[in-house]
């Protein structure tokens, strides 16, 4: 019974608006006429076109749809079947078809020119697509399963309870040892180096629950306290569940191999880019500090002091000012972009003549990172990328 009333209410409100406004389009009047003819019989109104604003307040955002377990299971079956079909289509073995193969196949079959990677067609396991949800937490009689259900964040509090229990146990154990006098020396766990605690988002994913910053901080503090005490291998396993490894970044830096030209001189070549400028530099290991850019001496090519200072930076940083010869070609961009591109190319080429520690220092100094700043696009309705048109009050 509720539905007809709602539509009737909508009709009435439209009518009031139409009578109230002046100079609306004829289409609206037609709609009004149509609906007058239908009379008070509640019917779904077909508006031809309307610019009427509903007087109702904004409809609240719909709650997340709850996916049932059967639904998820069905999706998983469909995904597996679809995977086999895809493998057959691509002519590969369905048994050994991995997720990377699926991604490649989809990119091949549905090429997309969209810039946003997340907007392109994807085919992934339903667990990655559908957000994790919790099953119904109470039984038929309405009684919740978990004893901490009424705290609101049952998984979080149960975890805290568990960890605190372990802390108490470890303290008791330590007191016993101290009483007996068998307290061994504290040894730092080497596993801690190269790993980090879970971040808040990862913890939320694990517990399938929203947390606050305060909760997260509390949890990490408790774990740190556990670390200071003596504990056995089971506790260590438990702690490792909450640690993630941190890869050392500098190992990703590629060092170009040193090449030798016809005369037997050692040199190293590499490229660099900045904005639209591209540069390729060849740095010779032994030289007198001559630098040639596009066949011209660098003093003539870069008359501005600032550009020459940019060129000087890699050499000055490594204290090798007059010891290398450089020949490079550069094109595109403006004078500052070309200088930056040459600097990057020279720094990358110098990596091959220099120890690993110095490479790490260069990386930390920012000499080996390509500057990602590119000219921002101009948007319509604005004069430039950020500048808006002059605002006139009237």
């Amino acid at each position: 019974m509720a539905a007809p009333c709602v539509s009737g209410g909508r009709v009435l409100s439209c009518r009031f608006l139409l009578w109230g406004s002046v100079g609306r389009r004829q289409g609206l009047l037609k709609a009004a006429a149509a609906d007058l003819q239908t009379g008070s019989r509640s019917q779904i109104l077909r508006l031809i076109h309307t610019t009427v604003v509903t007087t109702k307040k904004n409809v609240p955002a719909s709650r997340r749809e709850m996916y049932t377990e059967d639904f998820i299971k069905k999706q998983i079956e469909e995904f597996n079947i679809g995977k086999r079909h895809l493998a057959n289509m691509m002519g590969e073995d369905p048994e050994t078809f991995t997720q990377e193969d699926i991604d490649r196949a989809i990119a091949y079959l549905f090429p997309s020119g969209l810039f946003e990677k997340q907007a392109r067609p994807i085919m992934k396991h339903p667990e990655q697509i559908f957000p994790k949800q919790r099953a119904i937490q109470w039984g038929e009689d309405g009684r919740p399963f978990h004893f901490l259900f009424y705290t609101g964040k049952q998984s979080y509090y149960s975890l805290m309870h568990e960890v605190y229990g372990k802390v108490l146990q470890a303290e008791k154990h330590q007191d016993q040892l101290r009483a007996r006098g068998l307290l061994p020396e504290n040894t730092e766990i080497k596993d801690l180096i190269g790993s980090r605690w879970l971040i808040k988002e990862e913890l939320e994913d694990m517990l399938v629950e929203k947390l606050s910053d305060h909760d997260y901080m509390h949890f990490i503090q408790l774990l740190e306290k556990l670390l200071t005490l003596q504990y056995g291998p089971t506790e260590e396993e438990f702690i490792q569940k909450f640690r993630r490894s941190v890869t050392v970044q500098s190992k990703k830096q590629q060092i170009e191999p040193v090449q030798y030209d016809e005369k037997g001189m050692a040199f190293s070549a590499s490229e660099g880019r900045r904005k639209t400028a591209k540069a390729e530099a060849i740095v010779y290991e032994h030289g007198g500090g001559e630098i040639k850019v596009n066949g011209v001496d660098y003093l003539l090519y870069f008359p501005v002091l600032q550009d020459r200072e940019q060129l000087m930076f890699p050499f000055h940083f490594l204290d090798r000012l007059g010891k290398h010869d450089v020949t490079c070609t550069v094109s595109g961009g403006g004078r500052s972009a070309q200088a930056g591109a040459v600097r990057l190319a020279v720094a990358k080429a110098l990596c091959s003549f220099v120890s690993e520690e110095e490479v790490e220092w260069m990386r930390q100094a920012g000499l080996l990172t390509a500057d990602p700043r590119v000219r921002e696009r101009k948007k319509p309705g604005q004069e430039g990328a950020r500048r808006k048109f002059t605002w006139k009050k009237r």
Partner: protein
Amino acid sequence: MLKGVRRLISRVPKLDPGCFLHVATQAPQSTAAHLDSPVPVESPRAVSRTSEGDPARHGEQHESLHYSIPLEDVKTLFPHGLPPRFAKQVKTFGEACLMVRKPALELLHYLKNTNFAHPAVRYLLYGEKGTGKTLSLCHIIHFCAKHDWLILHIPDAHLWVKNCRDLLQSTYNKERLDQPLEASNWLKIFKTTNERFLSQIKVQEKYVWNKRESTEKGSPLGAVVEQGITRVRNATDAVGVVLKELKMQSSLGKFHLLVAVDGVNALWGRTTLRREDKSPVAPEELALIHNLRKMMRNDWHGGAIVLTLSQTGSLFKSRKAYLPHELLGKEGFDALDPFLPILVSNYNPVEFESCIQYYLENNWLQHEKAPTEEGKEELQFLSNSNPEQLERLCAFL
């Protein structure tokens, strides 16, 4: 000892301006007799300096050392001859110090051994921008002045082909154009540089300027110069007369003539001047340029011609051009052919070190890192040992 001698030289002109140069040439001889080696090594202060004030005595052992020109000489010889930045440096430091470099030494050697019976040899100083061509020319001029040559120095030929306000139709030749202001300026410079020659040289012909004024045959050259300075309308013609007379008379052997032109590529380039009807003016149509070109021809003897190419003031030439055939063009190259080219290049390490020492001695470099080795390496990299760039860098350190 040395300071005493210097004071003696500076005091002499007050006593007897007539034989100033005569006495000055004697004084260094006495110092040479006292000193065994011209290069003072004992004081660490003078690593970049030499006390040898006479360019005639500069040899290879003086290479990369600075020698100072007395300020009175600077005022007489170079009223407008020094590059503006160098003139400012002279004013700041209170002394004019030039570095003795290889191209200048080479040229001095040639000049010392010139055979005045042969036609005048043309020497062309060329090189990249800011390597020291103009200052080498100044070195040569100082040498010639010390040796009593008559110096015909055009500080910058480019000033005659651009930014000229008034162009008058020449009184002598209807097709050519006069530049009264530039001509009268130059006559003033000529007068300051060669005071004593003006009364000695006599004019060989009679020149009629206009209905009322004329210069008789046998009157001193100074009269022609005065005429040009006072009557600005006839200044260009006065310049032409002076050039002609000097050319004729140096062949007679009474004096040695040095023709020194800076920026000689202006004579054969293009001009930015236009006539009233907006038609462009070619360099040949300017009387000054025409007369100067006649001077460049080596059909006279009794002197030498030293020229400098300059891209800095040149018109319509790319910044990277420095070779003679690029800057002179085909016409200029043919007109000057044959000539002796002398390349002026950037500082070599010894010269660079000497220059930095000179600045440090004058307390010009205030940065705490400037005297250190790393600081010097940085400066060398940033300036690529180019004298001009180094000077500009050190200006704000």
